């Protein structure tokens, strides 16, 4: 028995070794290194980095500057992203689990945006917002097409959020469909027999039993919202002005465009802590409210 256990142990180690090495080289070592660089002043090019202690963290936390602005933007974006992608995805998932002719085709249609790369989605929508809307305006004469969706700082926020939700809907729909199909039929039948109407069945039976799916989707959409980067880069590059800088884009700009690698590293570590706390809290809250059958 113990020999077998040893062998299993050895196999486990052996087979996960490449993955462990990769993750270590690509994730953990750079993480530790950026921890070091966050304590230095370094432009990313010079051969020597100057150690300056906690100076960078002071700059990040004290100034009411770019980092705070980006943080506010990201939190707003994440809030709307989580809200809309979950509500709309759940609604569509309920529709798509109904039996109708084109259900499978429709599922595919909603999933397609998700398999396209974010950058391509960004460019497609950039084209729609600029050229497409101009054409629609000429055809319909409606004022809504004439608004500068990417050029107005207020509208740009909604444009970016909308494209983000549109792109990722398919993924959450699939998760919710899986959850809906796992809801036991007998419970649903029992509620019908007891005289519950459609809405009551949904809110009293289906929704509570979807708990695990909701937790997963909330968690995924939360982290994806907080990590938003490429869609903004492709759509607005953080503009107009600095109105759509997300924290990730801000870190990238600080480290690679402003040549402040040290300050960028400090920003990324501060953000890492914020994300860690935020996701843990949300995960705790939502999983504690799940119900077991």
């Amino acid at each position, binding site marked *: 028995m113990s020999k077998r256990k040893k062998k299993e142990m050895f196999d486990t180690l052996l*087979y996960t070794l*490449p993955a462990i090495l990769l993750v270590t080289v690509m994730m953990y070592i750079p993480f530790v290194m950026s921890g070091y660089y966050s304590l230095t002043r370094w432009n990313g*090019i010079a051969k020597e980095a100057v150690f300056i202690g906690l100076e960078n963290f002071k700059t990040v936390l004290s100034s009411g500057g770019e980092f705070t602005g980006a943080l506010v933007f990201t939190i707003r974006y994440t809030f709307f992203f989580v809200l809309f992608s979950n509500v709309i995805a759940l609604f569509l998932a309920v529709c798509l689990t109904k039996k109708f002719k084109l259900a499978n085709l429709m599922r595919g249609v909603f999933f397609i945006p998700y398999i396209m790369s974010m950058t391509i989605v960004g460019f497609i929508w950039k084209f729609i917002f*600029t050229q497409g809307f101009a054409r629609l305006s000429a055809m319909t004469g409606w004022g809504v097409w004439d608004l500068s969706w990417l050029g107005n700082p207020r509208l740009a926020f909604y444009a970016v959020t909308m494209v983000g939700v549109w792109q990722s809907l398919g993924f959450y729909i699939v998760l919710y469909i899986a959850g809906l199909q796992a809801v036991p039929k007998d419970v649903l039948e029992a509620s019908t027999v007891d005289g519950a109407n459609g809405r009551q069945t949904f809110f009293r039976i289906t929704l509570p039993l979807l708990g695990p799916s909701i937790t997963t989707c909330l968690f995924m959409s939360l982290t994806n919202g907080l990590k938003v980067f490429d869609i903004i880069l492709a759509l607005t590059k953080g503009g*107009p002005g600095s*109105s759509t800088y997300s924290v990730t884009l801000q870190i990238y*700009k600080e480290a*690679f465009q402003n040549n402040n690698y040290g300050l960028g590293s400090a920003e990324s570590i501060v953000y890492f802590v914020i994300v860690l706390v935020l996701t843990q809290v949300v995960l705790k809250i939502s999983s504690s409210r799940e119900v077991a059958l």
Partner: protein
Amino acid sequence: MKRKLISGILVGAMTLSLFAATAMADENEVYMFINQPEYADAITELIDAYAEVAPDVTINYETTQNDYPTLLKAKLNSGEVPDIFASTSGKEIDVYREYSLDLSDQPLAETILPSVASAMASTEEGGGLYGIAIKGNYFGLVYNKGIFDELGLEVPQTVDELTAACEAISEAGYKPFTTGYAEWWVFKHIFQHYLAAAADGAGTTVAELVQQFEKGEARIADLPEIYNNFFDLIDLSLQYGDDKPLETDLSGELAAYGGGTAAMVLGQGAWIEADSLAIDPELQVGFSGYPVTDDPAQCQIISGSDQALHIAKDSEAQQAALDFVNWWYTSDYGMAWFTDVAGVVPPVASDAESEFEVIKQGSALEEEKGSAPLGVCYSTDSWWQKFGELMQDYIAGTADKDATCAAIEENWAAIDGAK
């Protein structure tokens, strides 16, 4: 047993492959890693021509546009310094000076144009020649000569003429301006013309004026060429320009200009000619300075090079790389390459005729009225990017003129002044 052996080998192979080493350095192998992929075909042709001159030298040419500085930094930090690499000229020369060779004593220093060479000097050292250019460049106001001729208008040389021209063009049903205000770099190209005029007006040089801004001493309100004329131009271009200014990027400008609806293109230069002609081969391209003041003599174009190719300081293939660039800058083929193959403004003294209108008119104007200094290269792109964002805020209406000026003064000192 066999399966175990196979899986063991596979795991070992996967692990080892993670650490596979890159190719060894060789003194006859030049690794050239630069941006500007638009010249890839021309450079490949140049390298093929060089292969006949020096058959034992291999030049490995690699190019990328997307995110070049980040990729270069990754290479520098991993110790894989390309033998020839690129950056912007001027202020960024010092950023990469640690890695680059001073070319002052090379034969190419004889042929390089002084206006190009001045952008390759180190400001910290106050001299040196730390790079060469693929091309010289012309910056100015590109306009549609056809529209101006049709309306019987001269291209505006003063502020008042510009306003009058806009009214006339607008009345005739054309769009006076197309602006690429979605791009941050459009602003620096416009601004440098007004910066040159402001330096003139303040009785100083652009370099010194920029230093005053970096020290936080200069005030925009003291410089009427910027405070009034530059902001007036922006306002005018919003009044007479694109419907959605902050959504119009370079391709939007090209579409409006090449399509013949817009009379003047802001923030561009020699590089848009070929693409505009691709839209309409009959387009009559005109090129002029910006009407920066009331004095027509100050309406100058800007020439120079805004990018630099560095030769690595500590490389095995240094001699081979030097031979290559010297040949490029001094041989007959190399000097003719700029106009004949690449179709760019030559960065060397040469008599070759270009077939591009911007280049022809640019060099004629330069001879006639002189050219203004290339202001963009005195500051880093980190700053210019911020400048673009501040101007976008102004255009979006989130900041008024005085708030924008204050933000420009503050950020210029903070970003470029600190180190």
